């Protein structure tokens, strides 16, 4: 459970949606490294950046200093990659008492938006202990997914054909929600990140038994949900509440849609 402090910059590669490779640069937060980033390593680190994810610890007692470092990042980004998306995670929110969370976050968000001008940023309140982190990463993933508008149109058509309540598309490895189509409104605004979290937990458990899940069908008297692969890098969940539609029908529909979505994701 104890990860060591990141020393300097750690590089890793994550495959996302199959043919996208995300180069993640995890930059250590120690002061001495931060100094280097803005001076000797500035060009190296801040050029060619698509997304900057800046993590703030809500419990930090040196918020002004944190803001200064952040401002230096924004300046460097403006200079070297002005088209980058900026996401700020206000993290460790589980340590804030629940009734104060909303206002604490809103205040931080205001401060950060102010400091980031002229760059427009998106802020999230996150914690590793609940599904909020999934929501943040889903948005980040959404901004990185190519053809997102085309995907949404296709999903809407697919949802109508299946007569489903809702259709959700996940990235296969991370189970982050990339897109969804909803025919029947649902009261729970946080359901997508909850589902990412639930399935991710289950995948972890499966790996302990040296197996992975391929597909799922679950139901009770009110609904049926089908989770199956949609393309080589995505999964789909189809939620139906019409009991007259058999599972075979939905399975066939998903099968028929696969070729279309596979092409969609491969196209540039």
């Amino acid at each position, binding site marked *: 459970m104890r990860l060591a402090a990141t020393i300097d910059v750690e590089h890793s590669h994550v495959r996302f949606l199959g043919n996208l490779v995300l180069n993640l640069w995890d930059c250590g937060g120690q002061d001495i490294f931060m100094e280097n980033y803005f001076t000797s390593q500035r060009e190296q680190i801040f050029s060619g950046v698509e997304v900057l994810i800046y993590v703030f610890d809500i419990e930090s007692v040196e918020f002004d200093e944190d803001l200064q470092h952040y401002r230096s990042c924004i300046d460097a980004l403006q200079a070297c990659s002005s088209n980058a998306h900026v996401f700020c995670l206000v993290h460790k929110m589980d340590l804030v008492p629940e009734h104060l969370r909303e206002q604490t976050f809103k205040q931080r968000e205001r401060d950060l938006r102010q400091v980031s001008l002229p760059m427009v940023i998106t802020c999230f309140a996150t914690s590793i202990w609940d599904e909020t982190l999934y929501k943040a990463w889903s948005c980040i993933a959404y901004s990185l997914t190519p053809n997102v508008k085309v995907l949404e149109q296709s999903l809407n058509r697919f949802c109508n054909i299946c007569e489903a309540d809702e259709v959700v598309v996940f990235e296969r490895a991370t189970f982050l929600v990339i897109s969804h189509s909803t025919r029947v409104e649902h009261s729970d605004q946080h359901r997508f990140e909850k589902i990412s979290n639930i399935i991710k*937990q289950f995948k972890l458990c499966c790996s302990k*038994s040296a*197996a*992975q899940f391929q597909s799922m069908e*679950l*139901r009770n008297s*009110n609904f049926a*949900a089908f989770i199956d692969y949609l393309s080589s890098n995505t999964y789909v969940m189809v939620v139906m*509440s019409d009991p007259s539609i058999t599972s075979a029908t939905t399975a066939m529909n998903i099968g028929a849609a696969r070729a279309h979505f596979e092409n969609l994701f491969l196209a540039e």
Partner: protein
Amino acid sequence: MSVSSSPGYKYDEYGQNSSVPYSSSFANELGYGDDVVAQAAPVSVENKPRILLMGLRRSGKSSIQKVVFHKMSPNETLFLESTSKLIKNEISNSSFVQFQIWDFPGQVDILDPAFDVDLIFGGCGALVYIIDAQDDYSDALLKLSQTVTRARTVNPNITFEVFIHKVDGLTDDHKIEVQRNIQQQAQEDLAEAGVDDVHLSFYLTSIYDHSIFEAFSKVIQKLIPQLPTLENLLDMLVSNSKIEKAFLIDVVSKIYVATDHTFVDMSTYELCSDMIDVVIDISCIYGMADDPDGMAYDRGSSAIIRLSNKMVLYLREVNRYLALVALLREEDFDKHGLIDYNFSCFRKAIAEVFVKGAPPQ
């Protein structure tokens, strides 16, 4: 927090009817109220058989109870405060486990005359004694033998279970060593006290993995009079449907109430109980039909999960509290119409087992 020395554990108001045969509690309130004519009036919580959780302070009793029966995440138990008075838990309404769990404060002294042994041990089915394996356990062992001796005189039918707890921090060798030491010392202490015919069962447990659920499953199974029948029914279902392994699991606590006679592989049990989590969690999101008081787990609950190793997990609702979770090979699942038919016979049989109730007194 100061501990009051007054006997907060003397509950006279629950004094009557402390020993009730298990059978009558099983006949009622098992989810058959709608389908089947109820037998007697529902048995109140106070009269249900008890499981006592005892042990030194900070040994982990309340955490165990919260994690197993109240779905608390193990990390959150760090924030639980010390138990200062006896807590009786009514988990029987939502769980098949129709017992009261009595969580004692660690500093309860058995030998204190204010401790009403007749009341407490009289209606008790199992005494679970928890020993912190990461701490010095000599005191714990001393209290264990005192407790067992005392309880035995009041009620010779109590089963004694010792949980060697918090073993997540220990290496495998260390675990074996600790278990051996504790077992040896406990047997010696009991022999010295003149109580040699008592059988103690030992379990290595931790709330950070599945061992606590496995241990509780074994404890509960010893207290279910219908267990052999349930196991036989499961054996029949398993052999006739080419199922590899099947568990009858309580959906709230994830304790398995019965399984077929093939070997129980911990990872299979874990997988089955994780399946229940997924099904219930997703049903809570989509299966409530806009009714906040509705049930996520209902008569129509079922699930099929296909795994990459050519195995299939199949879940079917048995009654309000129990689910059958079966593991089969993919090729054997193809004819699942047949399996469904067998399952409906099984389900009817289970219903009959619980309604018939106890053998004649």
